[in-house]
């Protein structure tokens, strides 16, 4: 039983970080109908940048977040303007998939040149320590990563609910034409929304880099999990993405501990297939004509 609860705790901690990563993906799809396959690579980029900042200036990754997030926001806007806006509306979904995959490869290539393929890890002073809570141990690094992710998610939700940009984004998600009629500049909003989505990637990357070793090729593993999560949660649904991420984090961890570590990543896929057979639009998604 002890092992089980420990696994659940571990799963929640990991799921929280996945939730932050997946929310960016869900936002990009909701606002722009863009599947950003490069999200994994951008997360790894965030991880490398925070790693470099830590190595050279000794800046703790959670503090480096403050610097990185605006920078990555800017990068996101630039990427959207350069590569996604030129795509024609009708084929946007499929083409964005391919274009962002190409971007992911490009980022992987550049990172390999810059950092080589050795695995890196941002090893902070607290990297080895664990808190003990009622007999269960929680590694400090994972704990901080989880807390940071939750804080940022709350921040994201706050932006979406309370700011003008947030309202414009939500309007665009619900109905782009109506939003435009109401005076929302959907082109600007799309760029800013994408920027926001990439900003979440950088934050998640900083957290990820403390807990897990990574190299430029790590983005495949990440993106395959994230894509499964947002399909499970329902494309475009932020709440769905968060719920699905936590669910999958726990499922994978429990499976690894109770059944077999070899097949643990399978849990993702099995759950996905099961959901697709029963409910193709995911747990919280809507069956929209042509969009699923």
């Amino acid at each position, binding site marked *: 039983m002890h092992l089980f609860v420990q696994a659940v705790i571990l799963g929640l901690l990991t799921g929280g970080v996945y939730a932050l990563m997946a929310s960016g993906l869900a936002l990009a*799809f909701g606002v722009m*109908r863009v*599947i950003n396959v490069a999200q994994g690579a951008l997360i790894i980029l965030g991880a490398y940048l925070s790693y470099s900042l830590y190595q050279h200036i000794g800046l703790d990754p959670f503090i480096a977040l403050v610097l990185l997030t605006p920078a990555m926001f800017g990068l996101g806007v630039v990427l959207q303007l350069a*590569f996604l806006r*030129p*795509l*024609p509306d009708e084929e946007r*979904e*499929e*083409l964005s*998939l*391919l*274009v962002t*995959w*190409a*971007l992911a*490869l*490009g980022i*992987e*290539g*550049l990172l*390999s*040149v810059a950092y080589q*393929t050795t695995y890196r890890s941002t090893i902070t002073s607290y990297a080895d320590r664990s808190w003990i809570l009622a007999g269960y141990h929680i590694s400090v690094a994972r704990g901080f990563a989880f807390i940071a992710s939750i804080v940022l998610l709350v921040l994201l939700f706050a932006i979406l609910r309370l700011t003008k940009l947030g309202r414009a984004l939500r309007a665009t998600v619900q109905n782009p034409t109506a939003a435009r009629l109401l005076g929302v500049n959907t082109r600007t909003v799309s760029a800013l929304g994408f920027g926001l989505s990439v900003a979440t990637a950088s934050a998640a990357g900083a957290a990820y880099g403390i807990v897990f070793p990574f190299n*430029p090729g790590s983005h*495949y593993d990440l993106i*395959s999990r994230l*894509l*499964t999560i*947002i*399909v499970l949660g329902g*494309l475009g649904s932020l709440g769905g993405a968060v719920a699905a991420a936590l669910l999958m984090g726990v499922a994978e961890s429990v499976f690894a501990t109770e059944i077999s570590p*070899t*097949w643990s*990543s*399978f849990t*993702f*896929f099995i759950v*996905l*297939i099961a959901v*697709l*057979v029963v409910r*193709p639009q995911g747990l919280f998604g809507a069956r929209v*004509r*042509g*969009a*699923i």
Partner: protein
Amino acid sequence: MPFVFGAAWQMNLFFFTVMYAALASAWNIVGGYSGYISLGHAAFFGVGAYAVAITFNHVGIGGGYRPFYVLPLVGIGVGAASVPIAWVAYRTRAATFAIVTVTLLFVVQQLAFNLRSLTSGSQGLSLPVPSFPVSTYEHPFYYAMLGVLALSALASWYVRGSRLGLMLFAIRDDEDRARGLGVQTTFAKVSSFALSVGLVAMAGGIWAYYISFIYPQFAIDPLVTIGMVLMVYLGGKGTIWGPILGAFILVPAQQYLAYRLGASQLYLVGYSAIFLVVMLFLPRGILPSISDRLRHLKARRRPERTEGAVSDEPVERVAVS
């Protein structure tokens, strides 16, 4: 060609060129004709490769030419086995479908790693090395792959002109309307998928025998899918010769770049750059862009002729009988 250029290294180049041409051509049947972007085709390439390797390790048929005779069975088998998978996947559309196929890719790779008693997991599987004469060693493989390319191109041409092709084009244009008009979309989608992956699996089987040693991460490799897709988009999605042209340009180019640029990860950046350029500036691919240009020139040179010159694109509206 083997009677013009004979050296092993040249045959090797032709082998890979023809292989990707076959793969791209087969992918086009799904991606080009029906508009469903499948990013998981490499999974079936790997399944074909492992099917041949497992047959030889566990059933012990023997080497020589036998693996080539097994190929049609592999193609049909994989095609048939893909039907239930395709049926589940096709319950989704567009972007979700692409994600599901990517997931499929990783699932198959995981299976290859984990079903150790069958696939030897990460240790890899070796295939018996045939004792073909050294000077013409590559030839049987090359001919076999050429055969699969011919089959692929033939299938591509046949489907295009057939009722199945019309159904696929209707789906590409507007699936809901096609459904509403009574087109059996599920049948069309699943059968085109089965045909496409059967061909891909055969190519995989030959490849496994050629390399003589396969591993999960290389037999089921996302870069193989990306290669196929890139070649189709470069040459012209939805055309017959487009994918083949794309392969004939990119494979020698990649080998040349690897030879020159070698020791750097720049080949990934190169792939990425080519892809982005094609997507953004040449979205229809080379062949359709050329034929558009030609049509433009022809129309301009003969102003008295009306537009609507002969094209070999089939009629786009579906007339359902």
